[in-house]
């Protein structure tokens, strides 16, 4: 077979061959494009479905939990463990109890037990004091300290009984913790309160709250009258 003949034969199959290659390329391109697009859409649908499931759970959890968040127990939890040093609140509570049990406060010391650092989240302050009164009243006072907010822990209580009266050296610690500053990421699932957490809220809901707390906003008062301002109605002779 000579060269001319081969060329002639190729020419005869050239057009069908070009058509085959063209059809093949179009099919391959369409297949790869559609496959890639379908896979991309499937991934997107899957991830959006998963996200919607998390969002939907989050919305229903938040709707269910709403009454618990707005309950008095939740407010008590915030007062039980405030975000700032609760010494003043504890002393105020102690003062009320001291009056209730007719006890005399003879010494009071405050001492910060933990140095605030970025790693620490629970800070502790020691409140040490002496009281005088009857043993029974001191004992009832100590027992009642377990029912007040902000929460206190009895570190030490030494009571000396001298017949009709008694003297006690008491050391309490109270706690505070800064509020969390970040919400969990939107794509993570959110869980409501567990039974154990609800039980804790229930147990502290009967605690005695202070008459004031850190959530109070300052009151507005009318400005005080300036005693040195010129007053039209002021009569110096009358004043004398």
């Amino acid at each position: 077979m000579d060269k001319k003949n081969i060329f002639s034969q190729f020419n005869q199959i050239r057009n069908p061959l070009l058509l085959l290659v063209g059809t093949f390329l179009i099919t391959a391109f369409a297949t790869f494009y559609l496959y890639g697009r379908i896979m991309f859409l499937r991934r997107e649908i899957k991830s959006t479905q998963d996200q919607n499931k998390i969002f939907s759970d989050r919305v229903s959890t938040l709707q269910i939990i709403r009454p618990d968040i707005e309950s008095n127990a939740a407010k008590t939890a915030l007062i039980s463990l405030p975000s700032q040093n609760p010494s003043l609140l504890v002393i105020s509570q102690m003062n009320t109890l001291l009056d209730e049990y007719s006890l005399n406060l003879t010494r009071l010391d405050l001492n910060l037990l933990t140095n605030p650092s970025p790693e620490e989240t629970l800070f502790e302050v020691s409140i040490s004091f002496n009281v005088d009164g009857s043993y029974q009243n001191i004992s009832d006072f100590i027992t009642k300290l377990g029912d007040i907010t902000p929460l206190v822990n009895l570190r030490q209580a030494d009571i000396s009984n001298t017949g009709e009266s008694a003297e006690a050296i008491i050391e309490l610690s109270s706690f505070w913790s800064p509020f969390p500053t970040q919400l969990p990421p939107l794509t993570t699932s959110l869980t409501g309160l567990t039974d154990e957490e609800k039980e804790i809220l229930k147990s502290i809901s009967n605690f005695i709250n202070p008459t004031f707390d850190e959530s109070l906003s300052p009151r507005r008062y009318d400005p005080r009258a300036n005693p040195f301002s010129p007053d039209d109605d002021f009569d110096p002779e009358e004043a004398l």
Partner: protein
Amino acid sequence: MPEKINLLPKEPKKTKEVEKTTRLIGNATYFIAIILTIIGPLGGLTVYKFTRDLTKLKVENETLRSSIANLESTEQGLVLLKDRVGKIQTILGSRQSIEIHAKQAEIIEALPDGLALDQTELKSDVSRFSLLAISSKALAGFLKDISSNNHYVSLILSDLSFNPYLGFTFNLQVF
């Protein structure tokens, strides 16, 4: 008579091999074209359906996002409450002293005649108190009562001494 002359080049005659190859190529082209006609519309429909589903899901996603944004104050409250409750649990778990004081007070309040409290000490999870008993009978009666009470995990009696003016002095440790 003029002779007819064909000036067009003569079509080369197809050999059997060329015809066979052409038929093969033609069949392959038809086959691929059929695949394309199946895959094309099917893939296009699938892409259309998936795109529509995705659009619906995205709309739902936006609605849920806006619901979550509306409930943000509740979410903040929940995060805050869970943080507080977790820490309150830690604090309540470390409050054994008040419970021990209550046990101590229970013993002291129920002291029988002939016994008197001298001093009490309470530190972390240990309660120690010293009592005075005017007679051995009062002391024995008290010890019998308290040892029969299974309300206490452990009771330790120590430093028992006798003074003719005060009577018996002893220390009791409650756990």
